């Protein structure tokens, strides 16, 4: 009697509790699914925007792309204009950036990872590398305008531009190289030392070869970033209309190398594109799109390379 009483009184109160809990679980699950959908939606929006930007550029630019477009100088007539001086300029600037930025970046990274003692100099360098990564790119342009163009007297040249971009990609190369070096386990270092290697022999013979893949990834990503940078190059005063080519770096007569091009005036692809896009004439805007397609293909190909190398390195390494 007593027990049935209590069961009778407890059943109605327990049932809604269970129902409440089921409802709670269901609503929790619902919210969870809704949030996952929201996340997927946001990701899709970001990727669709990327797609739209590509398609917009391709639809406008592809019809203008031809061999003539690559071999013609800019012109007042939109249909005859090309990007010859722009892509040659870009290539030369990249050459300077590579020769200046890559050794500096790798050197700095090797120092910070393998040599630096824990002292205030190291702290200052570390803080500077972190901060430089956050400096707006146009500020590098102002630095170059004051320092390279006027203080050092390099003028508005390929050399100034290349050095500017080298400083700009320095943090990218340093961070990537340090990560690659850190991934090499300590016992590889010990093994080299045990065989009597000096520190530099250990670094040049073992560390750098083992981390080459990771370093390459960083270098390529840095170069891809540099090739698309417009603002700092505009700031040092690259011209927008160049109807000649700098003298070739390789000559047919000894010593086969020539450095006159370093101080030549120049333009680069993104600036040519900017110049065309700011004209009201629709025909020039189509040229801009075509230049953009070339730029985009170059950057994306470089990034794809970097991602591929990184993937391969990750797959291959088994210490």
């Amino acid at each position, binding site marked *: 009697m007593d027990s049935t009483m209590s069961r009778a009184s407890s059943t109605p109160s327990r049932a809604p509790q269970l129902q409440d809990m089921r409802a709670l679980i269901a609503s929790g699950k619902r919210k969870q699914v809704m949030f996952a959908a929201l996340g*997927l939606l946001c990701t899709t929006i970001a990727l669709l*925007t990327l797609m739209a930007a590509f398609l917009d550029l391709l639809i406008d630019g592809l019809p203008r792309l031809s061999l003539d477009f690559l071999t013609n100088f800019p012109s007042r007539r939109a249909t005859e204009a090309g990007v010859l001086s722009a892509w040659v300029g870009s290539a030369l600037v990249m050459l300077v950036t590579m020769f200046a930025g890559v*050794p*500096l970046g790798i050197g700095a990274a090797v120092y910070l990872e393998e040599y630096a003692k824990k002292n205030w100099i190291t702290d200052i360098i570390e803080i500077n590398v972190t901060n430089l990564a956050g400096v707006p790119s*146009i500020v590098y342009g102002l630095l170059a305008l004051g320092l390279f163009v006027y203080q050092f007297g390099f003028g508005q040249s390929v050399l100034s531009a290349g050095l500017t971009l080298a400083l700009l990609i*320095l943090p990218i190369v340093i961070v990537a190289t340090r990560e690659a070096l850190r991934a090499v386990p300590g016992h590889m270092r010990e093994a080299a030392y045990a065989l009597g290697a000096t520190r530099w022999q250990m670094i040049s013979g073992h560390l750098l070869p083992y981390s080459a893949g990771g370093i390459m990834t960083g270098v390529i990503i840095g170069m891809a970033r540099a090739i698309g940078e*417009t603002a700092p190059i505009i700031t*040092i*005063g690259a011209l927008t209309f160049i109807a000649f080519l700098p003298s070739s770096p390789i000559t047919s007569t000894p010593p086969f190398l020539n450095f006159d091009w370093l101080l030549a005036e120049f333009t680069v692809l993104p600036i040519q594109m900017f110049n065309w896009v700011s004209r009201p004439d629709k025909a020039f805007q189509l040229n801009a799109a075509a230049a953009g397609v070339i730029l985009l293909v170059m950057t994306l190909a470089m990034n794809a390379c970097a991602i591929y190398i990184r993937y391969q390195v990750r797959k291959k390494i088994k210490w």
Partner: protein
Amino acid sequence: MAANPTVATPHLGTIVEPLSHKRTRLAKEKAIELLLLGAALVAVFTTIAIVSILLIESIRFFEHVGLVDFLTDTVWTPLFANPRYGILPLVSGTLTVAAVALMVAIPMGTIIAIYLSEFAPHRVREVVKPFLEMLEAVPTVVFGYFALTFVTPLLQATIFPELPGFNMLGPGLVIGVFITPYISSVAEYAMRAVPMAMREGAYAIGSTKLQVALRIVTPAATSGIVAAYVLAVSRAIGETMVVAIAAGLNPTLTFNPMEPAATITAYIAQVALGDLPHGSIGYQSIFAAGLTLVLMTLGFNIFGHWMRKRYREAY
């Protein structure tokens, strides 16, 4: 060794030689270390050069222009016959574009980060992340073209028929989308660093994935998420090309994104294109503008640093 000194004598030469070898080797090692230190110090010199060049040219600028005028005048026309030097219109343009961009990037970036870190299946994450990285890699001049020839016409055709061809809304939205990956990747990295045990504890007391994500992981990763936001703010106020192409180049004191305006960066690019004589006040004005930009970035970074310290959680 001591037992047969006669054997050692003929080999003395080979013992002495390695010693001198060792000396040159040590010298070479030291030289290489100094060389590498030099490479590392380039970063320090770059910072010193940036600060000193901005300061020197700005001091020359402020010899002609009063600091009070610079900070309070509402017109910026340094290249006109009757020049006025009020930085406020450029600052308002910069802040407006950045605000539009962040209103897109912060919610989207945070949601994508939570989704990729806590919800997405492994394969989705592996596919999505390289594509998001691509969004970071596209040259910004391409996004400028996109804002001018696609986004603004699209906005005009759909929600804002009154929108002028040059405006701050279109570029702001485009910047917002392409800085989203900066937030999502840094924030996701922070979220994935939250120890699994904390999630498991929450699951054990019956939390859903969403509750774990919002009440456990997000608060624990606040420090990293704030770092992501600070990075995004720096990118948004430092972005040049999208604004220079699609926002018009008239400095206007307005916070209305539907209007055309110029930002600090767009002004610098515009003046630099015009080939100003070295040492003129117009030349100095871009350094004063650049200094303002750096101080704004620095301000946000210090604020971010303070926030991170406040919310830092160590496990």
